[in-house]
């Protein structure tokens, strides 16, 4: 079946089995490798991307449900010239070790601070539930607070 959606700001149409997980459409058909496979059962979060601004585990999201939606992957979140506040904070705190889970965390954190630009430690605990085997959570927590701070500081003040 044909499925059309906006990917990182650009209209895309793919023709594939409707039940194919969005993860494999992104990685293998659209050739964006940033989003990772960890478990295929929505248990680890390595495949996290945004669907209409919500953090979604794409390994368990059939592409047919992407019809008409706005998808954002890490490639659209930011780049070296214009990093997203989460990416900037991740760089400042030197968070990654092996790096494989980091994209999923960055996407989850970006969705969190978009909804809550001053998350408490409790908010972080409740909302950031991906798995990191290298154990970078300690630095991630600092980076999320820093990212929120960057975001707040770049907000245009309300009238």
């Amino acid at each position, binding site marked *: 079946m044909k499925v059309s959606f906006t990917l990182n700001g650009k209209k895309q149409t793919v023709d594939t*089995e409707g039940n*194919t*997980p969005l993860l*494999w459409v992104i990685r*293998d058909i659209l050739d*964006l*490798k*940033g*989003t*990772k*496979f*960890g*478990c*295929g*059962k929505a*248990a*680890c979060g*390595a495949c996290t991307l945004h669907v209409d601004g919500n953090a979604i585990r794409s390994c368990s999201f059939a592409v047919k449900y992407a019809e008409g939606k706005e998808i954002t*992957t*890490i*490639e659209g979140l*930011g*780049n*070296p010239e214009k*990093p997203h506040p989460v*990416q900037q904070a*991740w*760089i400042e705190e*030197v*968070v*990654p*070790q*092996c*790096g*494989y*889970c*980091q*994209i999923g965390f*960055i996407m989850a954190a970006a969705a969190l601070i978009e909804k809550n630009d001053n998350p408490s*430690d409790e908010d*972080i*605990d*409740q909302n*950031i*539930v*991906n*798995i*990191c*085997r*290298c*154990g*970078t*959570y*300690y*630095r*991630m*927590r600092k980076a999320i607070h820093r990212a929120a701070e960057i975001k707040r500081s770049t907000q245009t003040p309300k009238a």
Partner: protein
Amino acid sequence: MAKKFSRRKFIVRSLLGGTGLLIGGTFLARNSIRRSLYQIVNAGEMPYDGDTNDPRLWFEINDTNQITFYSPKVEMGQGTFTGLVQIAAEELEVEIEQINVVHAPTKSGVIDGLSTGGSTSISSLWQPLRELAATLREMLVIEAANQLGMDAKQLKVEKGVVSGGSTSLTYGEIVQGVENWEVPDTPPLKEAKDFKYIGKGISRVDLKAKVFGEPIFGLDAQMPDMLYGDVVRPSKIGATYLSADTSKAEKMPGVVKIVKEKDFVGVVARSRMEAHNAKKAIKVEWKTEKNWQSKDIEALIQVGEGDPMVIQTQGSAKSILSKAEEAGEEIRSEYTSPIGAHAQLEPNGAVAYVEKDKATIMMSTQVINMTRDEVADCLGMRADQVNIIPTYLGGGFGRRLHTPNAIQAALLSKAVGKPVKCFFDRKEEFQNDTFRPPTHHVMKAKLNADGLIEAIEHNVSSGDVMYGSALLPGYLQTVLGSDVGAWRGGMIQYGKIPNFRAISWRVKLPFATSWWRSLGLLANTFAIESFLDELAIRLKKDPVQFRLDQIQDDKAGDRLKKVIKSAADNAGYTDEVKNGRAMGFAASTDANTPVAHVAEVSVENNEIKVHKVTCAIDPGLAVNPDQVKAQSEGAIIMGLSAALYERMYVEDGELRPIIYGPYQMALMKNAPKEIDVLILENADAPGAVGEPPMGPIAAAIANAVFRLTGKRLRDLPLKLS
């Protein structure tokens, strides 16, 4: 005295048309275990999978002034690439950004026979890399002097530019058109006071790639015209492949070919999902011997079962403890740890392309050389016909110290004549892991009248770590004496105790057990350091002082005492419970790196919460202190995860669980909100960092839990309800 390179050991080549320079050096294994292995293997005429030729380090400088360093070690998060670039940049007199570090493919001739692991990458390459980089710099200066018609002594080197008076040449300019190079003696190396990069916590060189999602991992690899393969892997322990009914799978959409080999069946299809769906339609007949259950495994892992080997002995511990037992004076405690999974986030897999007379494999592996040889062997090719191109690993931890999945990918590719990408799924990762073996420990001690330990003994029963692993075949048992990996951390580090013994009981389990970050260190330290705590409490002594009083006065003892004092002082260690929190102390020495932890813990609704860990570590020289901290933080969290949550079990012949979640691991909410890492540098050379900081964490937590609850937990994972 550091061994100097002689000229013979450098290999120098001009790049095609004189457009650049390739220089390679060799190095011997510096780690003492590896050195003795080389001696043993070279002395006897024993078959050995590894390569005992000295591996090579390579730099390439081309006309764009780009310097490429071909690393024989892989980057799996431990920061090795960054440390190696710092070391190289220091002597080469270039900026960090001027060096591009890449994984060396096997066809480049850079092969390390013994893999990446054991916390040895920086320590083993420290001296050889410095010498090579310094010699290369000297060569460039001498050649620049020739080209400029000046005396080399008049020239200055900075940031990859050689200058004298008003003229200068970049390294890239110097190497142009030069066919013959003069290789000088290695110049003196920089003194620590002149270091620009070494000792600095510079940002990881792979940071941006990992934050912006560049396709650097094994899973991201691809080749033109690539197809997707999948292999049916067993669910049951000890299952061997007999036959398969592929009639349904053959007809499924996207299927290119069903591949039946002698010990597996697989499918190649046009997409990953099509390969996966076809695989599910294959009916395999397996042969299994026994339907294993957890209780069967527990019965095997018992001190007293299996093959015992004394791994450490001083004084007359055996007779003293035996008499003490008869007199009712022996103190005894038992501890256990479960089967542990690696659970690294990137599954194993490879992209393989087998052509008529060559094979190319892109994959995440810790054993580049061995994998090449295994693939060559299976394909009937020479080793030089197979090129393994390593990728950044999405987690190693010892999981990839044997990667025979490359063979399956190669055979699938050979069957269709195209590149094939073939990866494990998560269930297959959990059920076909080479697990952290379960252990059982018996600690025994007799105290003397002064409230110190007169005799102590540690018995540990464990599944194999090294034996049966492809990296070190079982025959080495007779020369090594016992399974080195299983008893890492199992020896008594308190040298003033007059009588001690450590005995390892080796058990062969029906499933693969092997290297898991720090090997036996976590479980062994849990047993020993919990027991030390139990003894201190019985004696109403401060557990920190109790340890200090029994450490010997030599260099190793001094280093251990320093980390113990540093951790205790910085944490403000106390036995008292304050505001519902208690502290627990533990220390270990692994690969010559002593580490001490203080864990600050509370218990809420029977849930153990670790709020803060203070960690003191003496890693020798810290090439990158920030990365030493990062490794310590990561090891603490990974160790905490194993201490509190992780456990594989066996049910109806299958290893379980098969998914994250049920295989519980530490999440963000479980990680300490404070981790203080104190680095006590104490040498002129870097030592082990990746594994040692994991040692004390389980015991430190258990010791804190005791003070808080009065309950002594002796089984991992630690549970209160």
